[in-house]
């Protein structure tokens, strides 16, 4: 197990190196380069440009620039944002927590809802509950995340009013009321719509995989044995079926981690959530702040690789049959 984990960790290193090369190359493709913003500025002379070029380390070969960039990353230096002139590391770290907060709530919320639904659907296969939930799962997988967000805003922000205050039932954006002192209920009210969007987004596939996993396990001999020795249904499911039935779900969660980042970008943009995805879009893409783009791409790729590793370990723990060689 330890050996397997070590080997998987070592495999991640060339993968991350490859990603860093790709990110660096992509950024070189953007026409103009980092000094475009200054080139058309009449207050900046050719001498200034040359000096800037030297200060920013742009007057050396590309491969040396790459080397400097990568070694700087390893020291925790991601460069300076073009738009705000702040260190990219601080910009990202200021947002990362907000993204993780929203993502973790959505991630565990989706598991808490989909696991019981999947189990009930499987134990009562073809009941009205099963049909309803399978349909809901299909619908959840068939709509754009952002549109579901817009519809929630129309319903719960614009249309339905809070009966006590007369204001909107839920805020349409932001993480908390700006200027107001910290209040838990205010935080929760801001969290509920964006979290619902992300939860609903992953609910579909989670329910389907949990249901399929449980159906598969229920036909195994050891489940029949457990029933035969007189265990109640609840005990059979909790003690015997559950751990094996969750394996397909764990596999799919591992594959869906990159999707969480996509979902976060869209949800954060719609709900003005001050997270990393919104930073990437509004500052990185829309204002061509490429140190921000590079930093976020590298960080999210690293997180995806690390979470992928964690999923593999959980998977190995749940299913000792898989080989470690």
């Amino acid at each position, binding site marked *: 197990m330890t050996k397997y984990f070590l080997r998987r960790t070592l495999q991640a290193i060339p993968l991350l190196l490859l990603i860093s090369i790709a990110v660096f190359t992509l950024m070189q493709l953007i026409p103009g380069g980092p000094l475009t913003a200054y080139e058309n500025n009449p207050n900046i002379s050719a001498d200034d440009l040359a000096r800037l070029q030297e200060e920013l380390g742009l007057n050396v070969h590309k491969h040396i620039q790459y080397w400097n960039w990568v070694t700087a990353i390893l020291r925790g230096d991601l460069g300076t944002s073009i738009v705000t002139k702040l260190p990219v590391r601080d910009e990202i770290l200021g947002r990362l927590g907000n993204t993780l907060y929203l993502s973790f709530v959505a991630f565990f919320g989706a598991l808490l809802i989909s696991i019981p639904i999947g189990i009930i659907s499987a134990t009562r296969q073809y009941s009205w509950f099963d049909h309803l939930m399978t349909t809901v799962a299909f619908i959840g997988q068939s709509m754009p995340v952002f549109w579901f967000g*817009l519809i929630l805003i129309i319903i719960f922000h614009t249309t339905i009013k809070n009966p006590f205050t007369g204001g909107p039932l839920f805020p349409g954006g932001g993480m908390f009321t700006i200027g107001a002192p910290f209040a838990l209920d205010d935080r929760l009210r801001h969290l509920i719509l964006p979290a619902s969007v992300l939860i609903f987004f992953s609910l579909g596939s989670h329910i389907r995989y949990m249901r399929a996993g449980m159906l598969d396990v229920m036909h195994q001999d050891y489940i029949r044995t457990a029933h035969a020795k007189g265990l109640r249904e609840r005990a059979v499911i909790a003690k015997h079926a559950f751990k094996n039935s969750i394996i397909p779900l764990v596999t799919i969660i591992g594959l869906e981690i990159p999707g969480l980042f996509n979902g976060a970008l869209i949800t954060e943009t719609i709900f003005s959530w001050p997270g990393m995805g919104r930073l990437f879009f509004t500052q990185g893409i829309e204002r061509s702040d490429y140190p921000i783009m590079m930093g*976020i791409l590298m960080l999210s790729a690293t997180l995806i690789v690390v979470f992928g590793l964690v999923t593999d370990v959980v998977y190995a723990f749940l299913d000792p049959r898989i080989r470690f060689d």
Partner: protein
Amino acid sequence: MQAQLSLPASNIDWQARMRPQESFSALVWRRFLKHKPAVAGLVAIIAIFLLCLLVPWLTNYDPGKTNVDIIRQPPSLAHIFGTDELGRDLFIRLWDGGRISILIGIATMVIAIFIGTLVGSLAGFYGGRIDNLLMRFTDFMLSIPQLFLLLLFAQLLRSTNDPRLSAGPMPIIVIIGILSWTGAARLVRGQFLSLKNKEFVEAAKMSGARNLRIMLRHILPNAASPIIVSATLRVGAAIITESTLSFLGFGVQPPTPTWGNMLKNAQAQMTYAPWTAIFPGLAILVTVLALNYIGDGLRDALDPHHVE
């Protein structure tokens, strides 16, 4: 493709066995018809296709034409989906936009399935170093969130200021296509891995068939079923991806309507003109839902181990 039906002994459908020489496609079609949601999906897709083809054509629709007298009218008999901020009829505009959205969905699927099948079959068939190389590359593609890369590419194309690279649906089709083949590659590789040691492949090798022929004539047709299912689902996924990109302002540019950029347009006014946001989204939902049900039905219908 020869249908080798190996039904479990207890479930032999004698009626099917007695029927003389039913072709594989007839068998699949008969099984598909039994999947009610899939049939409903197929009917819905045909209806949507016809509406997209006929409505803009019959109404002589001009996407650039505006009418300031009827801006932001709620749905009525004259404009059943209402009008937008430029007084354009949203019912007609919806079907006009559907043409582009569906075109993007299908064209993207073709690119993604082609690359995915190529990569997956080479990796699965040759194994070893080629497999390792191609699959590490696939891992690499999967390690960067797709939407981030899509936006980056879209931004790159736009910053070239070349109208061939930044206008119309073509650039979007290409970038979504080249970034969404990984699923198909893994699927096809798995199929090739399990099929390449089968007896019929051995037999083909013995008879001196070259590798290319074995891959194309012997293995690929046997791997066709999951590829067809995956292709169906890919069309829907691509329609959603297009709408997301256009919604963020990096997809197809106005005035060409797509369901995605109609929704982008709606975002600013949805609090007082919610119909502008509701109908294009419903169109995406119904189309993708129908495609997903068709994919589900095809999965059952094409499965050789399927129990009727």
